[in-house]
């Protein structure tokens, strides 16, 4: 649903939309970001606001530093990254707390409790506290919108960046949010002075540190702080309650839905710096305190520092997403009864729906216990035509140790490739391999490679490459270039390199041996692996291909492949490509394979078929007599040859074009 940008209205929007809207209304001029789930959608949503300049940065550190410049000049700026991205941006982030800001600066950080899209479950509140930066924690989508908007005022009030911690639940959720119109925030831009504030010379640092502490203290107990601490008591005038609940984030919404209205609650929207007075005032009215939050025990620990002893939560471990069972506590049966009553069945079901098409037998059905069902997982895999598939196929066949990185290519770890053994964080693959080769026995470089995607390479892979060259170790780095950040939906975070530009780049940083090759040609890949693994020097292979996410999906597809049943022996070798367009059906003793219209004609499967039974659709339509004549043709190479001749390529494009 689109949002009316002029009126105050309710719109059904996602959490990412709500962040973008709140920031736009606050009068931001710039958004700086590196893509990462769950907050990639914020920048997508910002694109509808013409007043805002946005451009993906090469990494989160760059985004934070660019935002610093914008803020120093006096403009309001939004910085967006996922939780682990804040680690990459930690250097400027910590120091920004010292220099302070001029224009309001809000850092949106997307946490991922449950780690559905991430390499850890890190809690950003802990990082913000370590940097002495205030952190806001919205509970629902209305909060996400309003906290983002208000955070800019808060930032200018404190002179500090302000973090708004959102979660996957917020970002991927949607609901009605009441929005308003944009505030004008145009002020005269200037270079920031004095140097005592903006130049972090050791002589100036103690004063800046003191100023930071003073800012946080002035925030605690201020009108701003009380705005983020809302206590609700069920009875007017009651002086004491048997227990009360202190909540933050999504836990507050869960509490609100579960509670029957009889429980006093303190909603904490700003867990750092903690408003001690508000928490103590609330606790004085309650004999016992329950703290509800997701992720770590950050809020509980802050409350404990005030000398309070929250009751123990029975099931809560801090691992994974918060569930209703995590609300159960030790020693307060009245509260547990409220929670348990919600766990009971209170739904309404209907008997009067007649199935449209009921295929079941009429026999009496044995009742199945869902607990006993073993449901096979449907793991993510490479897309049909993915330019990463061939290299992992070849690496898997060789059985060598592969240090991977962060990106789509972590899927190389899945079956049938099983060709990824370790990863750590963005850009780490090259350094980890270099570390291995520093201590392993001579010849280890023939048994291991590092694999890194192009976006990750430009994010944080260049310094490791330079260090690896300097270290003098042998070893092979494979850069998988599909010209964008494919994992997050294909964003361009750097200007893509052509093959020539790769050659120039690798030459200029003095890589002793390198090759830039097409990504899906298994023969060429194999030859390159032989040469590089046996080379007596450090080397780089760049495999250049297209990300299918960047190709027009609904456009005509040329050279789609099919399986020629005359030649297919059902050996199943084509399944080792793990291409989702190849479907197997088992009938009796024999397996039948089919290539569906997901095929984009990359030709990878055609190369691995020992019978050359996978051929272009156009060739399969010829009469059997002709098909027999070209039995055994290596179609991938044939088509590659045709493609290299312009006229033939044009003609084949015309006849091979599909309808949809």
């Amino acid at each position, binding site marked *: 649903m689109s949002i009316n940008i002029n009126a105050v209205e309710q719109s059904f929007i996602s959490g990412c939309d709500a962040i973008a809207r709140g920031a736009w209304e606050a009068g931001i001029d710039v958004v700086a970001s590196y893509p990462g789930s769950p907050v990639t959608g914020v920048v997508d949503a910002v694109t509808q606001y013409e007043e805002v300049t946005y451009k993906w940065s090469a990494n989160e550190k760059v985004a934070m530093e660019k935002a610093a410049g914008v803020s120093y000049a006096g403009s309001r700026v939004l910085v967006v990254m996922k939780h682990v991205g804040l680690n990459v941006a930690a250097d400027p982030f910590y120091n920004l707390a010292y220099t302070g800001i001029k224009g309001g600066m809000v850092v949106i950080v997307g946490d991922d409790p449950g780690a559905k*899209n991430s390499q850890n479950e890190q809690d950003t509140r802990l990082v913000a506290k370590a940097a002495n930066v205030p952190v806001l924690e919205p509970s629902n989508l209305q909060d996400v919108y309003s906290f983002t908007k208000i955070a800019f005022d808060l930032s200018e009030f404190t002179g500090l960046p302000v973090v708004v911690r959102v979660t996957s639940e917020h970002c991927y959720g949607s609901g009605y949010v009441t929005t308003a119109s944009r505030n004008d925030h145009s002020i005269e831009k200037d270079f920031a002075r004095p140097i005592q504030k903006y130049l972090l010379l050791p002589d100036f640092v103690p004063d800046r540190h003191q100023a930071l502490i003073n800012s946080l203290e002035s925030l605690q107990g201020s009108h701003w702080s009380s705005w983020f601490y809302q206590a609700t008591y069920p009875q007017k005038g009651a002086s004491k309650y048997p227990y009360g609940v202190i909540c933050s984030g999504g836990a507050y*919404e869960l509490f609100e839905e579960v509670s029957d209205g009889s429980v006093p609650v303190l909603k904490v929207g700003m867990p750092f710096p903690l408003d001690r007075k508000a928490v103590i005032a609330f606790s004085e009215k309650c004999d016992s305190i329950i703290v509800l939050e997701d992720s770590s025990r950050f809020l509980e620990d802050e409350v404990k520092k005030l000398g309070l002893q929250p009751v123990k939560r029975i099931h809560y471990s801090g691992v994974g997403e918060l569930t209703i069972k995590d609300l159960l506590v030790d020693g307060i049966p009245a509260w547990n009864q409220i929670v348990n009553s919600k766990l009971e069945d*209170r*739904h309404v079901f209907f008997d*009067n729906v007649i199935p*449209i098409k*009921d295929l079941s037998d009429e026999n009496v059905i044995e009742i199945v216990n869902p607990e006993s*069902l073993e449901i096979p997982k449907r793991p993510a895999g490479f897309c049909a035509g993915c330019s990463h598939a061939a290299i992992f196929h070849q690496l898997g066949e060789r059985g060598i140790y592969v240090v991977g990185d962060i990106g789509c290519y972590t899927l190389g770890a899945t079956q049938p490739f099983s060709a990824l053994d370790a990863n750590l964080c963005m850009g780490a693959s090259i350094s980890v391999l270099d570390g291995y080769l520093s201590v392993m026995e001579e010849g280890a470089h023939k048994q291991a490679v590092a694999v890194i995607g192009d976006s990750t390479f430009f994010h944080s892979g260049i310094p490791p490459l330079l260090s690896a060259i300097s270290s003098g170790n042998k070893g092979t780095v494979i850069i998988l270039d599909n010209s964008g950040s494919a994992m997050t939906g294909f964003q361009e975070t750097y200007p893509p390199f052509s093959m020539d530009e790769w050659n120039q780049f690798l030459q200029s940083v003095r890589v002793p041996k390198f090759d830039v090759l097409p990504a899906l040609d298994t023969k060429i890949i194999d030859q390159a692996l032989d040469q590089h693994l046996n080379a007596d020097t450090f080397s780089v292979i760049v495999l250049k291909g297209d990300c299918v996410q960047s190709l027009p999906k609904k456009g005509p597809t040329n050279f789609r492949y099919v399986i020629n049943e005359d030649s297919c022996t059902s050996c199943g070798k084509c399944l080792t490509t793990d291409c989702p367009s190849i479907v197997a059906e088992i009938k009796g003793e024999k397996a039948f394979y089919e290539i569906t219209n997901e095929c984009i004609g990359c030709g990878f499967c055609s190369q691995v078929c020992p019978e050359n039974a996978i051929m272009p659709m156009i060739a399969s339509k010829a009469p059997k007599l002709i098909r027999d004549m070209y039995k055994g043709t290596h179609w991938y190479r044939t088509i590659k040859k045709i493609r290299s001749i312009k006229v033939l390529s044009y003609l084949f494009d015309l006849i091979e074009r599909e309808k949809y």
Partner: protein
Amino acid sequence: MKTGYGLDIFISGIGGLGLLGLTRKTAILLSSRYKKVVTGESRGIAQRRGSVSGVIRAGDDVRTAKLLTDKANIIAALESFEIIRKPKLIKPGTICIISDLAIQNFGGSQHKIKYPSMNELVTLVESMGGKPVVIPFKDYAKRHELRNVHISSVMYGVMASLLGFSQESMLDERITGKPDAKNLSAMKYGYDLSLTVESTLNELPSPQGDVALSGQTAA
């Protein structure tokens, strides 16, 4: 005192089948009837054929998109097998809408998994007390040259009809935007399909509780 009654819908599918749009559209449609509607999505690496799911919760006191109990009023599966992705949610009376679109590829382990027939899936759902409703999509898609992603438009039509909305409400441009011809006809096809259901869910409790319940409460 809160009533506690609400509508919980679980939608399951595979990346690339349009689950996200279906969840949003259905939620907005429901928001014309319920005071509060919230959605949540579990995406994972969505576009790469992994399992994905969406939750829609509607009612007068709904706050969180988490399913509070191990059950749903309606489960809609955009792909056949995914109807049993969360078998615990199927309870006596749960309406299970199953697309006959079967994507038998389970990633690298595909050759080790025997994909169940529709008959087996329906029997399984019934054995847990669910009410299976099978959506014939495959033939329709073949006849109209549709892609797998169009199942989400068909399912939106089915949901709109099953939930008792008019076709006009379903096609409100504020919900659907301006769909192309294929999506539009897919929505209408889905809508017309479930009109064959004799009694629809339009009698679900409204937030104000002013509509008589025609079903039974399990507690």
